[in-house]
Structures are given as C-alpha cells and as structure tokens.
C-alpha cells in the first residue's frame, strides 16, 4: 500500500518537474525570438529551411485540400443555412465559424502531424547522436541556433498557410453559394467584409501564431528530454503528439469561449 502511494507521489513529482521544465523551455524559446543573436547566418539558414519544409513543400497538396474542403464544407454550411432559413447569417457563420475557428484548428492538426512530428524526430536523433554535445563544445547555443529559428518559421508558416487556406476555402466555397442562392461575387465579398471585426482578426492571428509556436516547441522539448537511446524516440514522440493535440484542443476551447463573451 505504501509502495502504491510512493509511486503516485513519484509520478506527480516527475510530472510537475516535466511541466515546469517545459514552461521554462517555452519561455526561453519565446524570449529568444526578440534576441538579435538568434538571427545569425547559421540560424537564418535553419529559418529558411524550416519555412520551406513547413509551408512551401506542402503547398500543392495543401491548395488541393483547401479547395476540396471549401466546396464540401462550405456547401454543407450553405445547405444547412438555406434549410433553416439562415441565409442572412451566412457571412457571420463563414467568418466566425469557418475562418476563425475551423481553419486554424484543422491546420493545427495537419501541420502537427507533418511538421511537429518531423521536428521532434529530428531533435531526438540529434540528441541521441550526441550532436548537442558538439554544439555545446563549440559554444553554439542550441536554442539560438536550432529552436528559435524553427519556432519563428513555424509561426510565420502557420499564419501564412492559415490565411491562404481561408482565402482558397472561401473562394472555392463561393461556387456552391453561387449555384444554391445565386449571390453575386461582389455582394458575397462585401457581406463578408462587413461582418469581420477587429476581435475576429485578433483571435485568428493570435491563435495561428500560438498554434505555430506549440507545434514546434512541444515536440522539440520532447526530443531534448530523450536520454540518448534510440529506443526512446517512438514513445517520446507519441507522448509529445498526445500532449500537442491536448494543447490544441485546449486552445480551441479558450478561443471558442472568447468568441462567446
């Protein structure tokens, strides 16, 4: 019985220490974004490579997905609004639900699996190969050199992709709107711009930046914490992805709550 409580206590302490270390790591990464030392030629190269892997490399499939979702998802929303005589609120639903809530959330799941996992595995492999020791031996700060450029790239890429996804989704969704309620394009765009508020833009931008930040920081931290054994990588990455998804859901709940206020 005593052993059982000891184990619980031990687990709680380990978990608390992990969370505290994670927050420390996140704060350091965040503060380093504003540190000019993080933008030397070596770090800039990592930044550009990360932007390429996160956003440019996936662009064709990404545009295709946005178009498919635009037609099908917007079609579903338009169909429901017509069925329940809510055409007058269509612009509101598109902006507040599809653009501000759905797009960043869907993108967060997609980018997590693609970029987050990749960054986590790369970090883990570097750690297991003792490459962090090399960086330390040559006095290269791993946060400045590796993580800050990746975090910045993640935030920039996420925000740009979210804007692009929203634009493509709304435009391809217009096809459905044109055929079902015969709304002309100028009226459609005007009605959308009329309902957009500063609060919507702020939520969209902040949420996108925060998702971009989390997608890089959580798997990177898991990679750093591995204790030099390849066998630990799958388990650590799986735990990191669960943590990342939980954080994304939590962020979505907060965002929806702000919308309701």
């Amino acid at each position, binding site marked *: 019985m005593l052993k059982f409580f000891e184990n619980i206590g031990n687990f709680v302490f380990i978990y608390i220490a992990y969370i505290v270390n994670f927050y420390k790591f996140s704060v350091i990464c965040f503060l380093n974004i504003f540190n000019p030392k993080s933008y030397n030629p070596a770090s800039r190269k990592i930044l550009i490579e990360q932007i390429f892997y996160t956003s440019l490399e996936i662009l064709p499939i990404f545009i295709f997905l946005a178009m498919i979702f635009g037609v099908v998802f917007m079609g579903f929303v338009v169909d429901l609004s017509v069925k329940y005589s809510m055409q007058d609120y269509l612009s509101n639903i598109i902006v507040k639900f599809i653009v501000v809530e759905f797009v960043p959330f869907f993108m967060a799941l997609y980018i997590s699996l693609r970029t987050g996992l990749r960054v986590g595995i790369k970090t883990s492999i570097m750690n297991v190969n003792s490459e962090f020791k*090399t960086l330390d031996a040559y006095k290269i700060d791993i946060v400045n050199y590796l993580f800050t450029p990746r975090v910045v790239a993640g935030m920039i890429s996420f925000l740009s992709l979210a804007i692009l996804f929203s634009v493509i989704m709304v435009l391809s969704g217009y096809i459905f709107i044109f055929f079902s309620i015969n709304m002309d394009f100028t009226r459609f765009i005007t009605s959308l711009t009329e309902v957009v508020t500063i609060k919507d833009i702020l939520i969209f931008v902040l949420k996108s930046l925060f998702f971009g930040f989390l997608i890089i920081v959580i798997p990177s931290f898991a990679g750093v914490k591995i204790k030099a054994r390849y066998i630990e990588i799958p388990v650590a990455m799986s735990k990191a992805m669960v943590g990342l998804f939980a954080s994304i859901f939590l962020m979505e709940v907060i965002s929806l709550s702000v919308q309701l206020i």
Partner: protein
Amino acid sequence: MIQKHIKQSRNFALVSESTPLLRDLNVIENIALILEYHDKISIKKAQSGVNDILKRCGADILSYKKVYELDKKDSIIVKYIRAYMSNFEIILIDRPFSMLDKMEDIQSIFELSEVLDDKAAQIVDLKSNEYYKDKYVLQ
C-alpha cells in the same frame, strides 16, 4: 603549458568521438557553421573560406559529402579542420586511435597538423586521465 591553459578555461576545440559531426549537414556546412554562428560571416563567404582550407589540406574532395558517406579517417580529418576553424587556440585530439580503423591512418592527422601548424594540437586521453577528466570531458 597547454594543460595549465585547459585548467584555467575551456578554451580548446575537441576532436573526439563525443563531438560528432552534424548528420543533417554536409562537410563544408559542418565546418562553416562555427564561422556563421560566432563570426556572423555570410554562408557564401564562410563556405568559400572553408573550401580554401580544405584545398590546402588536400581534402577538398570531401567538401560536399554527407557525414554518413565519410569513413573514419575522413571523419577525423573533417573534425580536425572544424576544430582548426573555430576560435579556440588549442586543438585536443582525444584518443585518435579509437576513432580510426587502421593505425597507419594516424599519419594523415600528423600531416594535417603540419599543414595547419598555426594552432597547437595535442593528443590526449580524456577517458583515463582522471585529473583532467572533469575539466574537459563533456558530460
């Protein structure tokens, strides 16, 4: 003299199994990284400087090779040049025979130290030297 210096500060570049090359980068990028990070030299300039040194050492054939394409001898040569290109004054080669396949390959390290003779290089055994172990073995 060298040992006294090591004791005072960690002002040395280590050529060791414990400081591997970065697998994501090729040879030239591995060496140029230090110049790009510390001296803020542009990638193009840093890589051109590294290429000159590699040519001087007769190792320019390695320039664009990936780390996994290098054999043990090439790997130690690249590590030595990386150590030379850093801002550290002393190069410590930790147990070179453990990093080489054949004993005679050590000759290439001696030749390298003759070409790049403006920095002192010292062969050490960081594993068994208890006195200096904590001062310069990277934990």
